[in-house]
Each structure stands twice: as C-alpha cells, then as structure tokens.
C-alpha cells in the first residue's frame, strides 16, 4: 500500500495495480471509514485505489495521511464481514431495447438467447461508481460475452441502456455518447438527482440482471 500526493489537495492511496476481491475490500473499507470526516472534499474509490481530496485550508498532506493511516489500522483490526446487498435490475433484452444483441451473438458465436441467458445468470460485483453519476464498474462478465466496442460511438445512448464494452458490462445512468454494445434496457433509475437517495447502486453491492418482458 502506498500513499502519495496526487495534487496540492489530494492523496492517492494505492493498494496495488491489479483487480482482485481482496484489494476491492481494502478500498471499500477505507472509503467507508473516511466518509464524512471534517476537512474532506471528496472520496474517489476505484478498482485498487482511493483518491482522497481535502480542503487545503483545513488539512495538509501530513495531517490527511495521518488520518488515512489511523483509519487503515482501525479497519484492518475490525475485519468487517458485512453481508453485501443483492440488487436486481429488471432488463428488457433484445428487439428494440437491445439493438446490438445480434452483433454480440455474432461476435461470440452464441445465439441471442444464449447471450441473454448467460448475461442474466451471472452475479456481478459493484467494484465502485465513477466516470458519470451512478455509473457502476461491474466485475464478473463471463469471458464468452466479451465483445469489442463499436468502431464509431453513438452520439446519444439513452439512460437505462444495458450494454457490453470489451470485457465489461454496465448500465448507462444518464443519456450520453457511448461505444458499448446495447443488449437491453432497464426502467430502473440508476441516477435520479431529485430522489432522496439519488444513486441506486453502492460500492460493494452484488447485482443481478433479471430478464423481464415489457
């Protein structure tokens, strides 16, 4: 584990350079332990690191690092084994909702039906949220389903699109440009700024896509 400045008001805590459940747990616990501390501006968890942004008028790097080390020690001793939530995301697969399902089937050598079954039979892990509001980086896409991104990204992908890009799968929380292959659509609101809890998913959640008919 290393702690180093990323800017004059942030520290990057790195737990290695690979994706694993063990590093995910370390990032998860530190993120939770740091949440809401005085002087912090933002926490940016990722696969194997946590960026801690603080207000330089309240904390300097040495104080912020001491805070991080204190929390790391406490968390290492506590050994949390909290049961993760299982979130089910209902999905309309294929047809008008999944314009690229046929392409994914063609690329993977599976039938569209097999693509859907495999995608919906898997339990995914929310490694972290990032990139855009409510966007979850999911682990667990079966290797057989990996499909390259579109060569020319779409200018506008609707919110709720369920898609595969390379060896990743995910849901677009807001309308945005995007190059992932869209295989379905969910009515679940992954991001709703007017809701009391604006983001549906949380780091550490388990997730299942559930095949649904419109």
């Amino acid at each position: 584990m290393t702690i180093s400045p990323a800017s004059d008001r942030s520290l990057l805590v790195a737990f290695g350079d690979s994706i694993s459940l063990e590093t995910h747990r370390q990032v998860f616990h530190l993120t939770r332990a740091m949440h809401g501390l005085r002087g912090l501006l933002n926490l940016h968890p990722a696969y194997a690191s946590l960026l801690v942004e603080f207000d330089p008028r309240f904390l300097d790097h040495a104080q912020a690092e001491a805070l991080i080390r204190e929390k790391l020690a406490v968390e290492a001793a506590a050994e949390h084994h909290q049961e993760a939530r299982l979130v089910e995301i209902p999905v309309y697969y294929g047809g008008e909702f999944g314009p690229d399902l046929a392409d994914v089937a063609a690329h993977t050598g599976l039938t569209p039906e097999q693509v859907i079954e495999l995608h919906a039979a898997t339990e995914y892990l929310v490694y972290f949220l990032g990139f855009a509001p409510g966007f979850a980086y999911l682990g667990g896409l079966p290797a057989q389903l990996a499909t390259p991104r579109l060569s020319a990204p779409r200018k506008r992908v609707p919110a709720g699109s369920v898609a595969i890009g390379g060896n990743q799968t995910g849901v677009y929380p807001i309308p945005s440009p995007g190059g992932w292959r869209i295989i379905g659509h969910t009515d679940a609101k992954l991001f709703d700024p007017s809701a009391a809890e604006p983001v549906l998913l949380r780091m550490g959640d388990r997730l299942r896509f559930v095949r649904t008919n419109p």
Partner: protein
Amino acid sequence: MSSIRVVSPGFLTTIQDLGRYGHAHRGISASGAADALGLRAGNLLVGNAENAPAIEMTLTGGEFEFESDAIVALAGSDFDAELPLWMPIEIKAGAVLRCRGTKSGARCYLAVRGGIDAPLTLASASAHLLTGVGGRTLRKGDVLAIGESAVRKPRPPAKNPPQSERSATVRVTDGPQSGWFSGQLYEAPYTVAEECNRMGIRLTGTPIPSPAGGMLTEGVALGAIQVPPDGQPIVLFVEHQTTGGYPKPANVISADFWRLGQMRPRDEVRFEKVSIPHALDLLQAQERWLYTL
C-alpha cells in the same frame, strides 16, 4: 420577492455556487464556479456569504432587467458592461444591466446582494451541464429570484484584483504518474483548443509521448493534467469525470484554478512545476487577499 429577468442570456450563462462536494464516490463531480475566486470575491463585495449562488457568464455576457433596486458586483473578466468591476454597484428598479463580449478572459460573474434564490440539488445550486444535475443554461425570459441571504454590509472596492492574461503561466505539482514522463510538459507552450469547456480544457502543442502500457482506472482530482494516447494534454476541470484511465504527469495548483476558468480558445499556456509547500503558500496569499474584501 425581488427578481431579475433574463432579457438575453449571452453565449453560455448558468447559476453557480462553489459546487456540490461529497458525492464523487457516486460518480458525481463537484461542478461549481469555473473561476471560484471571482465568484467568492463578487459575493463578498456585495455582503453575501462567499458561496452564495451567482450568475456565471462565458465569453459573451447577457442582459438582465432588475425588477427592483439591487446591489450587484461584477467580478472576473471585463465583459464590456460599461460598469466598474470588483466593487458593489447600486442598480435601480427597471434598469437593464448589459454585458457584451469579453475584453479579457473567459468568465464574468454577476453577484447580487442576497444571492440568487435557486433550487438546490444535493445541497448546491450549481448547474452541472454535462449531466444535467442542478439546472441548465439560462434562457431568454427566465426570471431569477433574488434571495435574502446577505450576511453583512456591502464592502469597499477590491484592491489589486486578479487579472487574467492571454499568455499565462500555470503552476503545477507532480501528478500520480509524473515518474512515467520526462518533463516534456514544461518545455514549450501549449495552445488552448476550441474544445475548452467546464469539463476539460484541451491543449494542443508538441505531442508528449504517452507511456506504453495501460493503467487501472483511478480517481482524478480537479486540475489533473492527463495525457491520452495522442499526446495532447487535457486539463480536467470542474465538471470532470470522477475516475479516469489516462496517465497524469501533473496537477494544476489550487491557487491557479481561477486561471483555468479564465482561459479561452487560442490562449497560450506554459506550465511551471512548483513544490507542494510553495503551492500552499501561494494559496494562503490568495486567501489573504480574499479576506481583505
């Protein structure tokens, strides 16, 4: 309640405060004023708390009709309003404040005594244009309520306000991957590209060899300078993505964030590396200036 009517919005005008913090772990970046120093100064001059919502104009300003007497301050760049900047000004009911094209940098703030009474999303009135969080750009006919949140009397004019330059030196500290780069960022000036907005500032110049091999997506800080495979640096700005996978040789210092907010396409920028203690000294000097207001 007193209010302001948008007669003409200008090129790109939004309501901004200092942004919404504490939501990056949900993928939501802070947004907030592009030149936070300008916004804070404008608010302090009219007697507001420094984070009161105010009007941010970009390149070409708008025209605003005041439906009652008001006290305002213009801060940031001179948008040719034929009014002095950096001081409280009384506006009479029925008067129209007309801003035009910029005569200096990219942004001008119109702070109003009492603050703009705008709805809050996640505790901030700041519009995050990319995601649609917290509102949209202002349109002709919009009516903005003036709040009653002033906290003290209007202040005397500011002395020695910051002045943006079309050829600027921006100070940086080492970024997380500075060891992957060999100093090319500091060798020659860059030009600000047309793709320059609240999300990021694209630069063009001598390409920087982008180190081979990918890196894991990690958190990115405000002002991070990232180098994608084409070698042309991008400075991540107030609406930045919360995580990213491009290496970052450097990060703009907090005391120079305001300069980013005043950059316009075709401006020239040079980067100068400083130590973190020096960066914090510069920030402290800036804060001291602010609290003379």
